[in-house]
């Protein structure tokens, strides 16, 4: 298969249309000097990813991605950024200066994994491009075969919820508590 | 009662005491009455069951293992839970269960410092399991475990409840506390022997597959069957195996010169400990000779017989002479055990049915009589707070019944005919007059004469003991002291032993009825005669 064959397939055009912005957005996520920009780049990257999912027929997952990530998680991030009073504007020190070792590591990962993938799957074609998997299948699967992990994950999520609340809650010292009770008493009297 | 016959009965006899020990652990420390009754209940039921076994035992086929079972236990090494009684082990099993119960009765209100009946009874019950188990085990691994199981409780009994006085070791001039020294010596000495014994067992195991067993086996009946064809031969291997087992058993018997743990252990042990030690535990060694050494390695037994006989007779003479020098009543009795077990071993050394029968009745008689002697010595030291013979005297006057029982027991111990002790001694001598064909006649007849002279020495020290302890006027230091004579618990513990002494003395078939066929069969299998 030559590049010519590959580029002549229209789906590959669609792929490129979504892949290139994805990579660029991803790049921005890890390099941007502005935290908010990084977060917004992630939104963009995830949107592109959702497009790729649709291209691969995973419509349900794509919409989940959009709804959950773009709709919720990113909001969470933005709140996180605000609460931690992270530098919202441009900031030189968002990344530290030891970039090369990190880059080399990342490159090594990339080379290794991509080489292994290509070596293993080569030119395996994806048939049925764009044929969506019905949500029914996923639903049956989730509440059938995978019901136990599904419940487990649900439980995990609950636990994470409670954990998040607990962590984020400001613990009162006994002195604080007394003070508050005193205030409450005073209010009750009046 | 097929469940009873198929191993349950026997297993319960063995394990009920251990179960009782566990139950005991659950009883609060303050509830001593409950503890005593629990111990009593479990050992009592075990005793009753052993008596039922004795009553329903088929004496017509005493050479067969009865009431047995064989369950796969450690398949990886071919070891089975294999138990059973035959005529040889039956009397000893009954003796063991009965003596345990009597020991509990005796200690009912009689606890040595530091008191704590709960722990003491628990140890006693574990000891009972070990002793009963040794007599019924038909698998070398099982045997070994039970054989070793008795060490631990006894170690603690001596070490905790033992004699707290100190003495100086000769030669080394080291001051040691009796109980600690004795318990450690007892434990290490026995363990030393056991290590060799285990080696011997392993030797048998690894050779058994090569010489005719379907696979390597620890199974005693299988090994005996091999032994009757003399499968292990008479080479160096068999010699070493026998020697290793000999060492293990001889320490336990104990034979001269491996006996020195015995006087220390007996002297330092609490009364009940001494009784159990003398009455049952010494029998484990000699029983093992009969059960394991002789039938499995008959050729070697024959080869070793002169050595065993010589050591036995040295033990007789030596023990008796040592008795004459003792100043401590318990130590004297302990040394007398060396002499008496010498007769047992002399009987075994002859390798004849008469000799082995002599050994068994000697074991039973020694168990009863010496057990009683230690009970008496314990009761006396409990009352006088001393065991020193020189300070005693006139006991017969202070406590007529106790003195009377002591005199009776001493008479039984010196082998008075008509009492149990006689048969073992007499028959051992009888057997050594004509030992197994091929053994040195001159040697054994010399041993017979020396053994007979040993009976004179035995009489000598026993009578001397009686004279110094029982007779004469009480020493001035006891003036005005009130001594209570034998109390109810003591009577309850001793009366069965006294009755048994007379009964076996007059009608030794009580024992021989069970043993004869088994022993004859054993000797015929081993030596083809």
């Amino acid at each position: 298969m030559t590049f010519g064959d590959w580029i002549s397939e229209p789906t590959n055009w669609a792929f490129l249309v979504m892949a290139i912005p994805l990579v660029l957005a991803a790049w921005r996520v890890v390099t941007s000097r502005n935290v908010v920009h990084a977060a917004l780049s992630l939104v963009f990257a995830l949107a592109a990813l959702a497009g790729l999912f649709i291209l691969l027929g995973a419509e349900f997952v794509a919409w989940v991605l959009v709804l959950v990530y773009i709709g919720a998680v990113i909001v969470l991030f933005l709140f996180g950024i605000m609460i931690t009073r992270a530098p919202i504007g441009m900031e030189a020190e968002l990344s530290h200066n030891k970039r090369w070792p990190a880059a080399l590591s990342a490159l090594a990962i990339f080379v290794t994994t991509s080489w292994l993938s290509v070596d293993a799957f080569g030119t395996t074609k994806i048939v049925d491009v764009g044929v969506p998997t019905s949500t029914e299948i996923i639903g049956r699967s989730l509440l059938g075969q995978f019901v136990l992990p599904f419940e487990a994950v649900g439980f995990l999520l609950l636990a994470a919820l409670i954990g998040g609340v607990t962590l984020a809650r400001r613990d009162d010292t006994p002195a604080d508590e007394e003070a508050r009770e005193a205030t409450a008493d005073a209010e009750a009297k009046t | 009662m097929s469940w009873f016959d198929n191993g349950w009965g026997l297993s319960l006899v063995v394990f009920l005491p251990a179960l009782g020990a566990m139950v005991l652990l659950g009883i609060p420390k303050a509830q001593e009455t409950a503890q005593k009754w629990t111990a009593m209940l479990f050992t009592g039921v075990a005793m009753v069951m052993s008596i039922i076994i004795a009553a329903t035992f088929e004496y017509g086929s005493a050479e067969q293992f009865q009431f047995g079972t064989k369950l796969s236990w450690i398949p990886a090494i071919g070891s089975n839970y294999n138990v059973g009684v035959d005529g040889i082990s039956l009397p000893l099993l009954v003796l063991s269960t009965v003596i345990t119960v009597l020991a509990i009765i005796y200690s009912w209100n009689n606890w040595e410092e530091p008191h704590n009946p709960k722990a003491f009874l628990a140890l006693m019950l574990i000891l009972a399991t070990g002793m009963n188990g040794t007599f019924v085990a038909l698998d070398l691994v099982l045997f070994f475990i039970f054989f070793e199981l008795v060490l631990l409780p006894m170690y603690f009994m001596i070490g905790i409840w033992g004699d707290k006085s100190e003495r100086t070791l000769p030669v080394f001039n080291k001051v040691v506390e009796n109980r600690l020294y004795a318990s450690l010596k007892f434990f290490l000495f026995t363990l030393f022997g056991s290590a060799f014994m285990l080696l011997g067992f392993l030797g048998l195991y690894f050779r058994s597959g090569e010489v005719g067993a379907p696979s390597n086996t620890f199974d005693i009946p299988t090994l005996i069957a091999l032994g009757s064809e003399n499968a292990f031969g008479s080479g160096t291997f068999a010699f070493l195996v026998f020697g290793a087992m000999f060492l293990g058993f001889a320490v336990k018997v104990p034979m001269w010169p491996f006996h020195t743990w015995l006087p220390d252990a007996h002297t330092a042990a609490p009364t009940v400990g001494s009784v159990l030690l003398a009455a049952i535990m010494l029998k484990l060694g000699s029983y093992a000779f009969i059960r394991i050494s002789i039938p499995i390695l008959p050729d070697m037994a024959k080869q070793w017989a002169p050595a065993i006989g010589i050591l036995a007779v040295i033990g007789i003479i030596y023990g008796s002479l040592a008795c004459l020098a003792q100043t401590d009543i318990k130590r004297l009795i302990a040394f007398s055990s060396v002499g008496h077990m010498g007769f047992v071993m002399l009987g075994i050394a002859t390798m004849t049915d008469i000799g082995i029968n002599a050994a068994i009745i000697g074991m039973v008689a020694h168990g009863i009589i010496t057990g009683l002697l230690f009970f008496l010595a314990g009761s006396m030291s409990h009352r006088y707070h001393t065991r020193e013979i020189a300070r005693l005297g006139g006991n017969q006057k202070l406590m007529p019944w106790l003195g009377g029982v002591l005199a009776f027991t001493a008479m039984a111990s010196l082998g008075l005919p008509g009492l149990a002790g006689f048969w073992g001694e007499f028959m051992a001598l009888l057997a050594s007059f004509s030992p197994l064909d091929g053994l040195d006649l001159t040697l054994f007849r010399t041993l017979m004469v020396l053994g007979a002279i040993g009976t004179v020495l035995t009489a000598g020290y026993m009578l001397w003991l009686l004279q110094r302890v029982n007779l004469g006027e009480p020493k001035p230091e006891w003036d005005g002291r009130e001594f209570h004579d034998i109390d109810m618990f003591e009577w309850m513990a001793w009366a069965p032993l006294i009755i048994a002494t007379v009964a076996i003395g007059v009608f030794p078939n009580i024992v021989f009825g069970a043993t004869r066929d088994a022993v004859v069969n054993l000797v015929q299998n081993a030596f083809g005669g």
Partner: protein
Amino acid sequence: MVNTIALAQTVLAVVEEDGAVVEAVELASGGFFAQWAGIMLLSPFVAFIAIILVGKRMKYNGAELAVGAMALNLVWSSVLFVSNMIDGIFYEVGFVVADVGQFMGRPLVFELGFVVDGLSIMMYWVVAFVSTMVFIYAVSYMQGDVRVPWFFASLSLFAGAMLVLVGAPNLIQLIIGWEGVGLASYLLIGHYWEQKENSSAAIKAFLVNKVADVGLIIGAIMIGRTLGDFRFSSIAKAAIAQDEALAGIAVAAGLLLFFGAMGKSAQFPLHVWLPDAMAGPTPVSALMHAATMVTAGIYLMGRLFPLYQNLAQDAREWMVPIAAITLFAMGLLALVTDDIKKVLAYSTVSQLGYMMVAIAVGGYTAALFHLFTHAFFKALLFLGAGSVIHSVHSNNMSDMGGLRKYMPTTYRTFVIGALSLAGIIPLAGFWSKDEILGVMGVEGYTSFMWLAIAGAFITALYMTRTVALTFHGTYKGEGVPHESPRLMTIPLVVLAVPATIAGLFNIPGVSWGSIGNFTSWIGARIVPMGDYHPSSINWGLATAGVAAAALGIALGWSLFGRDARTQQLRDTFEIPFLYPLLRNKYYIDDLYMRGLVNPIKGTVAKGIDFVNGSVIDGIVNGAAFLMGAFGRFVYQGFDQRGIDLAINATAGGTSRLGGALRFLQTGKVQHYAGAFVVGAVVLVVGFVIFT
């Protein structure tokens, strides 16, 4: 299982276990009284236990029970005695008490039972008769003494053991009875055990007998293991049949059994216990140490007579001299003793020597006849002496004298006994002693015969001395002596009767019609005894014996008869060399004590104890300490400085390495993550490359 050898005149058969007819003997089975003779053997034991349990609460402290049991025995044995006179009885029964294995192709068993034949019936009767007399006597003698119930219990125990002994159908039961009487003897000699001498005397008696028992036991073992059977009847039959195997060991076994008998029957040099045994109450001395127990050795010899007569003739070479020494030398000792009981004790030893020499030379009847008569007159003498002691509260003749006036009955009966013992015609002792002399002459032991005649002279001499010092002259003791109560004198009188007339039952050549004579009575055995019986009186020998006795009496009277000189004379009877020798009892006791007992009790025992404590235990402890030292070396030298050094070096090195490496531990998550990533890559690449 019961093995019965039943004999009846009509059956004419010895019935073995399997019913095979073995041998025809013309003896009666004895009927009910023989078949149930075991009751005789058991009744004293019943009395023994009963007295222990309830004796204290009875009026006579349990003596009723003891006397009752013995009276039953006396009646029972009298019936047997009479039937045996008429018919001759043999009945034997054994209950198997122990099967102990195979021997010579058949089971070796131990039996308990009883044998009823001429010999045992005679012994039953003697034991029962003397015991009854002594028991009755003792009721009065022991009144107010210490531990009276126990005393009678022990006496009953003795009687029972003695009956077990004489009724024994086999060697095993004999040994049981043998040691049983030894035990009773020990208990009774030591009856006053508050004094150490008494308990020591008891121990001495027991131990000397125990030494002798070694011979008895080994002899029994030899016979039993050769024959495969311990029964006397089997031994006798084998002996008659000249059994080869038995012949091979007969002399050795015979001598060993004789050694056993030497102990019980106090033969030189094992006689030392008997004089000391006089520490017991006098009735005990009379019953056991004169009439019955000490004759057990003679009885054993008689029981095994077929063996000695047919197979062990050579044993005589040892037996005769020993017995002859005993009879002569021990008589001499009686001459210098002051204690009246010890005089009688030495006399007993001497008389036992007579019996033993008789049976040794083959005089079965003669020996047992002397046993028979001796039992009466010696019991009589002892009881007489007891009566005297009871009256003067001293054993020493130097505290007596002139008692004839105070104690006429005792005096008369004592004199009868003394004359009988001295061998004055026609009293019992004469006939039996004459028979012994006769058989010695016939069997060719002439020189020993003359020694025995000399012994008769000595006997007469010391008995005259005893009578003179005790009953004649003037009273030298304290208080006023008195005649003993009826209960004590009646047995004396009763015993005086057989002491006088018993000899008439065995006048040579005389048979009393259908009851025959003593020879025929005790000849009722499973096999014929084949000993010598004189057919008529040997007047020459009789004259010699009586002359010797008369001479002895005359000399004794001249030496001791006059009171004024007695005291001095007793002390001036100092023949140089001989007197100190006799006073010190030939130094035999000293030899035993200093040469044997004390070294064993002292040096040897302590030596063994030292060996035990220092050598064997030294090795054990040494090994322990050595192991300890080795352990310390291993710990300090090897473990601490060797292994631990390596360990510590490793640890130190690790620590330093860690000190260096800790700079890697930046605590920064990203460093770790980077290392993780690199590691993952390396692993994946490595995996790919190497697979």
